[in-house]
């Protein structure tokens, strides 16, 4: 009798199980019929699902109130969204180089992100900073660094998005204006945006740098200064994206983001500005997560909600105040290190949702973000993803192509209702400031994060490579790893030490004294910050000085003392 060899037996057994798997795959169907945020959806949507809708009132054409379908009549026929990749790596020179690379490859806007030391308001020579300078963004400690970052880029032509969110945004604005003025620009011509949303950064690891009163004070100082001096500048980008990354749902993202925006708007109204003075300059940073239709519906719902909020609650008259302007960041937390090239596919779907939602400016994540900062190849692929959507797919020809879909309109209504419910709950607590003080918002984030992990554990949410279609762990990153040059970190530390020794000490002290006076007298601090920056005061010195006036330690980490008497 012909004995089978062991290898043959193995293969036969494997084939037997494989055919079982084949049959299972063949007959497989969705396990869950819920959206990512947990809403059960029906098998099919029909005209009955929209029976009570009045088109002009609930939806309207693109460019018409309530802007459900988009803020411009012609949408992308007028101009594509800004293709803007976030760049922030090592030193200002390293970051400038990568930004220039993105421009060379067809990027249409700049987006530079601060590193953790800069966001915390620490100079690179701070004992806590030395291991971390430039790891997660660009480090700027003085006007000199901002000059290096800007280089030859024409500030009146290029739309620059400065991602500094903490109270450090006030220093960033001062540094940017100081450099622009030094280069001879009229600051009224500067185009771009600054994130300047310190409240949200309490929830993203920067709490020591973001006490609530100081967050509202300095955030609003930037807004007020720009309202009066920089008419083309968008001076706050309320960061709903970072909130979503904590694991919350789509309607929570909108409701929490709007609640935070209202904290700033209420302060600006208290300062005597009119809603139409500033609402047109408010923008939002929105997540595009992996549930395609839910994300599109979320964006459409947010537009309608914002229009009504501005008109009905704040009494805005200018239609521009009612237009929800937003940038999208595809969801970093939807990406995984397992089978990392799959992330390219996830990013494509998320970016497509953003575009179909009518986005103004888009950052696609790099596929390698669950492993390291974006490599040059990662950045390029992210930009190419945007360009393929813009130039190849044809989805840009028609405004809001999904408008009128029985399903998408119904889901838009659902997300609006859910977000409004949460906003009502916040109102009943006494508003978002109060909800923050009571740590209600902290509890929301903590609870939702745990829920998301349990959904993965149970298989309620499936992620390829994580809890379905898994494979052996990778041993390398497909397109290489981005590392921060040690040289850059050391150089930043040496540079700031040298600057502090070489500048005119008397000039700095006097400028710091004037900043302290402005803060103590309740005046807007930005003009004094600009002057101090021109005297080569550093980031930590600007912010520390204002912190002290507000009764906080000079140093958020409480290690070093103010060098000024």
């Amino acid at each position: 009798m012909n004995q089978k060899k062991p290898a043959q037996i193995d293969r036969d057994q494997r084939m037997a199980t494989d055919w079982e798997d084949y049959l299972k795959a063949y007959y497989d169907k969705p396990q869950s019929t819920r959206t990512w945020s947990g809403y059960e959806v029906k098998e099919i949507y029909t005209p009955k699902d929209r029976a009570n809708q009045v088109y002009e009132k609930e939806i309207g054409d693109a460019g018409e109130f309530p802007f459900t379908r988009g803020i411009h009549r012609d949408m992308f026929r007028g101009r594509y969204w800004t293709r803007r990749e976030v760049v922030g790596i090592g030193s200002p020179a390293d970051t400038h180089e990568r930004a220039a690379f993105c421009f060379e490859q067809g990027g249409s806007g700049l987006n530079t992100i601060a590193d953790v030391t800069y966001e915390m308001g620490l100079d690179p020579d701070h004992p806590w900073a030395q291991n971390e300078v430039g790891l997660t963004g660009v480090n700027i400690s003085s006007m000199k660094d901002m000059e290096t970052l800007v280089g030859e880029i024409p500030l009146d032509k290029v739309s620059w998005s400065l991602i500094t969110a903490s109270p450090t945004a006030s220093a960033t604005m001062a540094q940017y204006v100081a450099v622009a003025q030094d280069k001879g620009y009229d600051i009224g011509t500067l185009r771009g945006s600054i994130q300047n949303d310190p409240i949200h950064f309490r929830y993203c690891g920067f709490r020591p740098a973001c006490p609530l009163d100081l967050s509202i004070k300095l955030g609003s100082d930037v807004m007020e200064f720009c309202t009066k001096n920089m008419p083309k500048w968008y001076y706050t980008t309320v960061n709903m994206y970072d909130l979503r990354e904590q694991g919350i749902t789509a309607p929570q993202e909108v409701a929490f983001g709007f609640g935070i925006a209202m904290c700033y708007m209420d302060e600006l109204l208290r300062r005597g500005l009119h809603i139409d003075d500033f609402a047109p300059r408010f923008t939002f940073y929105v997540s595009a997560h992996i549930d395609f239709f839910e994300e599109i519906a979320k964006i459409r719902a947010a537009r309608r909600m914002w229009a009504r909020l501005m008109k009905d609650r704040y009494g805005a008259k200018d239609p521009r105040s009612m237009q929800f302007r937003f940038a999208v960041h595809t969801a970093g937390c939807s990406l995984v290190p397992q089978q990392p090239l799959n992330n390219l596919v996830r990013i494509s779907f998320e970016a497509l949702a953003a575009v179909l939602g009518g986005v103004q400016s888009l950052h696609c994540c790099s596929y390698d973000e669950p492993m390291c900062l974006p490599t040059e190849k990662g950045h390029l692929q992210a930009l190419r993803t945007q360009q393929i959507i813009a130039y190849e797919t044809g989805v840009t020809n028609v405004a809001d192509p999904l408008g009128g879909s029985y399903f998408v309109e119904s889901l838009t209504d659902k997300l609006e209702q859910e977000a409004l419910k949460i906003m009502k709950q916040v109102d009943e607590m006494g508003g978002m400031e109060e909800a923050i003080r009571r740590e209600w918002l902290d509890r929301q984030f903590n609870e939702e994060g745990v829920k998301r992990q349990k959904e993965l554990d149970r298989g309620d949410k499936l992620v390829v490579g994580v809890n379905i279609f898994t494979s052996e762990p990778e041993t390398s990153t497909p397109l290489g790893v981005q590392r921060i040059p040690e040289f850059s970190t050391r150089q930043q530390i040496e540079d700031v030490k040298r600057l502090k020794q070489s500048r005119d000490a008397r000039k700095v002290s006097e400028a710091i004294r004037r900043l302290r006076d402005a803060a103590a007298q309740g005046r807007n601090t930005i003009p004094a910050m600009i002057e101090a920056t021109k005297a080569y005061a550093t980031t930590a010195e600007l912010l520390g000085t204002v912190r002290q006036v507000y009764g906080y330690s000079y140093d958020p980490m409480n290690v070093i003392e103010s060098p000024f008497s």
Partner: protein
Amino acid sequence: MRSKRKIRVIISKVGLDGHDRGSKVVAALLREAGMEVVYLGMYQTPEGIVQAAIDEDVDVIGVSYLSGEHLVYTPQIVEEMKENGLDDVLFLVGGSFPPEDIPVMREMGADEVFRGGSLTDSFVNYIRQNVRHQD
């Protein structure tokens, strides 16, 4: 009769990295799995973490990195643990880092490394099976 002592774990961030969603979620899930968790949170130093491990008499130190600081702090924590004689304490790392660095961190002295996308069973079971001084 002695009641069985619960496994005691420290979960911490180190340095300035503010990405704490993962560490908070892991802390909550280990508690639900019946362990006692001391959550140190953000802005910890290697010395501070090891001192807390001694004070709290823990079996496991878990540290989460998401800002590319893992190759700086991992050897510092291992060194502190050695200096303080914590040979019987497991040292686990979690977070975002290149797969190339996982063997490097093991070589440096991390007992096990968990990437993003790890399921709860994987780290709960690892701790139960490898914790060194169980009664």
